């Protein structure tokens, strides 16, 4: 390749790279520019009883014109939501501005509506909007209605008492006053909603979209199926892991199945292929008759079976971070305890308590780190007090899926 | 000086070198003979560290190659030049670039100097004027000679030739043998030559080694080898088939 060709090529690459970088810079700038203001923005916050349906980037509007968007969502006092709004600097909000969560469109697209007040004083940047219009939805309405019925109960009860016992008339009146007031607000809520439905303003969409509603429906359906079918939240876990044994340089494979009828109880089933299990001693006694004398000869055999197939079946019960389990471990009796905190876990098992030949129990201990919900690594020691079997260390890796993962795995392939 | 001590090398099940011992004297020409497939090329690659022995040691000028990591062995090879049996020309580079390659890699030379050296080396192998051709456009013998020009371009201290004259016509064979012998005399290089050409081998060799069944069956001066009483050696150098070799 000549000098000339080479420089031609370098020019080509330079142009290509430059165009590519321009496109990338253009795209990032284009999309990061919220098209709000050339003068910049400021933030204010508002505390809501519920931020259901609100997300980052949800628009903030005044009289239908977008003036900002939601920047952050946090919890305050463990009960309410603080919503940070980023507002266009040209828009000045008065201190008595009122915020309300509203929905539009059939899909129930949510936005925050600001209604400016008449005050002269302006909200300072990072200030708070104190006036919030309640968001009316069906759940609130039902709770109000049930409060009304409670009040009716109180009234009728005191009426009964008073009429029968000739008691305090003032009391009755005040109760009545309270009741009618509550009825009023409830009725206004009802009219509010029906009006919106009449206007076709997204309440159905909101119902469809509202995660809380869906959650409630699910809960109800679940409870229903619990009472009808008795099949309560039965969770299944399927997993596989392998352990590479350092000393014997072999790989031990596990396929496991866990069934959890309740979160704190489990039935664990493992299939294990052990390439290098401890020897099995076998005593055989034979009577040998020679020269009229019968002697009993005992032969002591040590048998090693390669690639032995073993089964574990255990019942487990969890107390907070600690799980105790027991049953059959690797085809012998055994018990174990697991400790789990966050992504880290420690496990200890003791099994194979046969001691006919002075063997000691098979002990196994390991630590585990969950890399993601489904993948984990582990490492530990195996059979570390054995007398006639060298102690071994191992490292391993595995994955597990719970039935929800399976559902989503086989379900509609989601984008991302 | 290159010492090979107790080299064993297997490829899978097949043991090629089985405890081979050989010493390559400094500044001399050593010719390695042996039947096809006996492991000569494998032996040569051990000397430069392209293959690592399963056991045993290769010592080059007092440095054991097994003490060098893959990373360290690379600059160590500056002192070598090697002609591969299949020439191993870079097929993305033309003839000029191929021969210039070691010069550009290892020496700070102006392009004018590089051009001069390349032209001189190509002339020495009788291939002037093909600088712009690609390796795929050359004949087998031409490729081999370009490979030879590349191997000697740097004038290294040790040159390993894997069958430099195989596939050349008789005139070219003798002129290449001449070239090797001249280079050796002029620069006092240590040369190792693998050859099937018994006659010219005996002419230029200071030492001859015969590889057989993974070991050096016989080594010594050409005269000693010629006089050898070992039947296989005798048959080999005289080209006598006993019918049991194949």
């Amino acid at each position: 390749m000549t000098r000339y060709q080479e420089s031609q090529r370098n020019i080509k690459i330079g142009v290509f790279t430059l165009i590519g970088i321009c496109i990338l810079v253009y795209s990032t700038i284009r999309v990061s520019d919220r098209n709000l203001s050339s003068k910049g923005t400021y933030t204010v916050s508002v505390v809501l009883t519920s931020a259901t349906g609100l997300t980052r980037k949800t628009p903030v509007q005044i009289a239908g014109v977008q003036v900002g968007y939601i920047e952050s969502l946090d919890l305050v006092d463990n009960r309410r939501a603080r919503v940070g709004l980023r507002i266009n600097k040209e828009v000045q909000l008065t201190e008595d501005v009122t915020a309300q969560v509203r929905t539009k469109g059939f899909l129930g697209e949510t936005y925050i509506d600001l209604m400016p007040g008449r005050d002269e004083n302006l909200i300072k940047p990072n200030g708070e909007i104190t006036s919030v219009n309640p968001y009316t939805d069906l759940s609130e309405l039902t709770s109000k209605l049930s409060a009304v019925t409670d009040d009716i109960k109180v009234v009728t009860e005191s009426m009964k008492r008073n009429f029968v016992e000739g008691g305090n008339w003032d009391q009755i009146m005040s109760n009545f006053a309270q009741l009618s007031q509550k009825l009023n607000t409830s009725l206004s809520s009802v009219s509010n909603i029906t009006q919106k439905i009449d206007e076709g303003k997204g309440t159905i969409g909101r119902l469809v979209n509202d995660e809380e509603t869906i959650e409630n429906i699910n809960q109800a359906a679940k409870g229903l199926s619990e009472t009808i079918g008795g099949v309560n939240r039965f969770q299944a876990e399927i997993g596989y892991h392998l352990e590479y044994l350092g000393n014997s340089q072999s790989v031990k494979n596990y396929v496991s199945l866990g069934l959890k009828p309740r979160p704190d109880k489990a039935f664990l089933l493992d299939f294990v292929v052990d390439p290098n299990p401890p020897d099995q001693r076998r005593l055989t006694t034979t009577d040998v008759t020679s020269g009229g004398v019968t002697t009993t000869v005992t032969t002591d055999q040590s048998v090693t079976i390669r690639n032995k197939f073993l089964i574990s079946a255990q019942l487990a019960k969890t107390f907070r971070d600690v799980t105790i389990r027991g049953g059959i471990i690797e085809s012998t009796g055994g018990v174990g305890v697991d400790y789990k905190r966050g992504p880290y876990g420690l496990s200890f098992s003791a099994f194979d308590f046969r001691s006919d030949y002075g063997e000691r129990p098979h002990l196994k201990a390991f630590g585990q780190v969950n890399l993601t919900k489904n993948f984990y690594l582990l490492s530990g020691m195996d059979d570390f007090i054995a007398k006639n079997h060298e102690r071994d260390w191992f490292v391993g890796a595995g994955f597990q899926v719970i039935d929800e993962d399976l559902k989503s795995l086989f379900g509609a392939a989601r984008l991302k | 000086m290159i010492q090979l001590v107790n080299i064993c090398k297997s490829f899978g099940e097949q043991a090629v070198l089985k405890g081979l011992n050989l010493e390559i004297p400094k500044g001399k020409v050593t010719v390695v003979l042996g039947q096809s497939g006996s492991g000569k090329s494998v032996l040569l690659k051990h000397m430069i560290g392209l293959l690592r022995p399963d056991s045993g040691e290769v010592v080059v000028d007092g440095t054991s190659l097994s003490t060098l990591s893959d990373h360290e062995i690379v600059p160590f090879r500056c002192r070598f030049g090697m002609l591969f049996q299949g020439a191993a020309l870079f097929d993305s580079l033309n003839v000029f670039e191929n021969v210039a390659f070691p010069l550009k890699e290892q020496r700070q030379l102006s392009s004018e100097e590089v051009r001069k050296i390349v032209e001189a080396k190509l002339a020495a192998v009788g291939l002037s004027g093909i600088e712009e051709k690609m390796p795929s456009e050359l004949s087998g013998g031409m490729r081999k000679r370009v490979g030879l020009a590349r191997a000697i371009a740097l004038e290294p201290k040790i040159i390993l030739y894997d069958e430099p004259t195989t596939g050349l016509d008789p005139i070219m064979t003798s002129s290449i043998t001449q070239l090797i012998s001249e280079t050796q005399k002029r620069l006092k290089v240590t040369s190792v030559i693998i050859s099937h050409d018994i006659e010219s081998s005996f002419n230029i060799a200071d030492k001859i080694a015969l590889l057989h069944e993974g070991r050096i069956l016989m080594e010594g001066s050409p005269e000693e080898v010629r006089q050898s009483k070992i039947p296989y050696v005798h048959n080999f150098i005289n080209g006598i088939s006993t019918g049991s070799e194949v």
Partner: protein
Amino acid sequence: MKRLVERLGFWIQKIMEEFGEVLSFTASFGRWLFVPPFRWRQTMEQMEFIGIGSLPVIALTGLFTGMVFALQAHHSFRIFHAEALIGSTVGLALSREIGPVFTALMVTARAGSAMAAEIGSMKVTEQIDALESMAVSPIHYLVVPRVVAGLVMVPILYGFFLFIGVAGAYFVAVGLLGLPEAPFLSKLYYYVDMDDVIGGLMKSVFFGFLLTIISCHRGYRTSGGAQGVGLSTTRAVVISSVTVLVADYFLTSWILEFLPNF
């Protein structure tokens, strides 16, 4: 059952072996990366090959992916009268997932296979040995330029893919389906965020690295003549593609963790 467990174990062992080999290959790449001189000429050659060479195929796949995406989105969004969201849907999908993954897969198919074949045939014709005999590290001479070119060029190709894909969606939505232009663009700018593009860029840098190092490694491990070269090429493409898809999952979960708005 036992057979199944063993088979699974065998495969996992195989994968681990490959994984370990690639890791040590990566380590020696890292070691040679900073050894002077930097091979500009080879790197430029590879940049031309990976970058400019892949542009047509990237442009075509990007264009048609964007177009078909817009068509499909229109088909389902029409039901909800949410056609305005087509632009943002296509933009999000292309910037976050489809862009980096498709770009990486196309580059694998085009350039990764060529790398494996080229290095593989150099291996079987002793050219790699010849390089080494001239005190030149094949990693330094062959692998470093290719991987560096991949690192630089795949993200840039991702930029082209994204831009052309969105342009394709725009053409279908506004040009063919006659939807209004303003909501298409405003929703696109509104919902696609800088972090989406940056996340996609991070992914493509990773993918560029993975696919080049895996392809080079496969080529480097070639043995046994023309058939071996063919085998290496196939395996380079398969392993790179699978790795890209698996890595995508983990990268996404990490990027989700560290980029607040991704």
